[in-house]
């Protein structure tokens, strides 16, 4: 990882902003697959979950529409599963080659960061903690959705193929899977809508998952440790802790 743009000769009135490479093209493609399949699954899912509500019945106004919604849900599920397989296969490939980057794995520092950040938010500390390439918030997002999607895929298969599943597993897993699928969907949806969308859209507009890069200011403020590691410069700025 190194700075993408080397500094150009500065002239009056020109600000040169350095960008840092953050996500590879394949990772951005994976995010697109995840984003599209998750959105479609969530929307077609809640319509089915709330079938007894009138707003749902306005959408599913004919039996044929229900079949369509279920088919779309299944197609989106297959897209998500393909994405999960690609992601895991790539992960295992990197592990086998001993090339797995450690930046995404949770470590003790994340717990300390969460504590420091809470102190900072409660005005008990003056400075926000310095994060590495991925902040504890981003790691939480990744691993929360990693396990949520795992739960959704497994329980989704159980309620998609209940007859086949119960040849192996006890029947009582079917209603348990149905309740899990239905509830975990809402939990994951709430998590994405509140936690993830706040961090990437409202706290600051962070489109690095689409552009693949992050500008210098955001790197300094939100990934200070990583900025210092990459540049060898101090990440501190006069308005440290202020609004971006």
């Amino acid at each position, binding site marked *: 990882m190194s700075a993408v743009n080397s500094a150009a000769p500065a002239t009056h009135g020109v600000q040169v902003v350095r960008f840092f490479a953050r996500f590879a093209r394949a990772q951005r493609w994976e995010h697109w697959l995840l984003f599209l399949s998750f959105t479609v699954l969530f929307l077609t899912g809640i319509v089915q979950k709330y*079938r*007894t509500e009138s707003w749902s*019945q306005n959408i*599913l*106004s*004919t*039996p044929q529409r229900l079949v369509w919604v279920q088919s779309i849900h299944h197609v989106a599920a297959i897209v998500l599963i393909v994405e999960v397989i690609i992601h895991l296969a790539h992960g295992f490939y990197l592990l086998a080659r001993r090339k797995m980057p450690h930046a995404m794995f949770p470590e003790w520092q994340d717990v300390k960061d969460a504590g420091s950040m*809470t102190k*900072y*938010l*409660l*005005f008990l500390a003056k400075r926000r903690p310095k994060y590495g390439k991925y902040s504890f918030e981003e790691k939480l997002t990744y691993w929360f959705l990693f396990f949520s999607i795992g739960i959704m895929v497994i329980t989704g298969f159980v309620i998609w193929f*209940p*007859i086949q599943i*119960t*040849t192996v*597993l*006890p*029947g*009582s*897993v*079917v*209603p*348990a899977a*149905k*309740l*899990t699928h239905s*509830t*975990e969907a*809402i*939990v994951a949806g*709430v*998590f994405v809508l*509140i*936690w993830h969308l*706040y961090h990437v859209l*409202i*706290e600051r507009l962070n489109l690095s998952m689409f552009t693949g890069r992050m500008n210098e200011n955001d790197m300094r403020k939100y990934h200070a440790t990583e900025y210092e590691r990459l540049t060898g410069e101090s990440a501190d700025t006069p*308005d440290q*802790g*202020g*609004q971006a």
Partner: protein
Amino acid sequence: MVKSRLLLPFVIIGVLLVLWGLASNASSTSAAPLSVDRSAAPPAQQTEQYCLSCHGKPDLKMTLPSGEELSLYISPDQLKSSAHSPAGIECEACHTNITTYPHPAINFQTRRDLSRSYYEACQKCHPANYAKTQDGIHAKSAAAGDPKAPICTDCHGAHDVQKPDQPRVKISQTCSPCHQDVYDSYKNSIHGSALINDNNPDVPVCTDCHGVHNIQDPRTAQFRVQTPEMCAGCHADPQRMSKYNLPTDVYSLYQTSWHGVDISVYKANWPTIWHESAVCTDCHSVHDILPASDPKSSVNPNNLLATCQKCHKNAGPNWTSAWTGHNKIDPQRTPYLYAVDRFYSQFAQAVLWLCILYVVLQIMHALVDRVRRSLK
């Protein structure tokens, strides 16, 4: 002067109201067909005596053009113990075309023609019930040309007409001559045996589920989707169920089940479209319903898989435990479901509130920062 001018409209309205009240009162008394004065002494029944002077003879009969013999004998005892005769309703109330002797010639080919012609007289006094039968499946089969389709007198009797529900078992027995196979299956069911053996007042007789005069075809999609609600009429009634120690939440729990949600959606939106999702009778059987403890019951644990396989063709032996039954989520009976329910009742709340709390703190901190900077 001003006062009386103001009062005038009220006076007019008042007079109109009084007139209207009188008029509607008068029309309601004249329209009430069943207001027989039962407190008065029994009427003389002079016409009846006169008719019975001939029709009281047991060998009085005639031959119809079809070759059928029509007995013209009316048992005086039967007539006197009927519902009509003691109430002062005389022969010509029904036999409206016969006022004199000799009688006008009759032009019926068969006995059935005769019955089908005379029952029209019932609507004079029983217009509401008569109108209801016109919407029923029996009237539809008659209109489709089935001469055997029942008319009033087939169920209620003619000269021997009695209260139809005393004793209560009489109702179901009334249906049995035509629907013998159904009756045979019903009489051994938990409902039928309680009715026939114990004269139980709570179990359904035929008409409780099928309706009385406007009996509908029970094989339609509409009848199917309203079945759960119909069963709930008794099985969700705490007063009735407490006598037999039966749970009353079977219906509400069914409605949250996979089957129940399907059916409620179809009932609300597409009641005329047939849907296979199970209703009560698909699992519990229709007329031969038995308690689950009975080895012959379709929902007895030993028969349950076969019952599920009626729809879920390839279901294996593990399948039946996928059915959480009408039981609540329970740590013994549905341990996985119980665990999931307990976990998410905590976890979902925790995720929601932690997300909200963290984001609110972030926003507040950002606002405070902004205010501080602008004050610098």
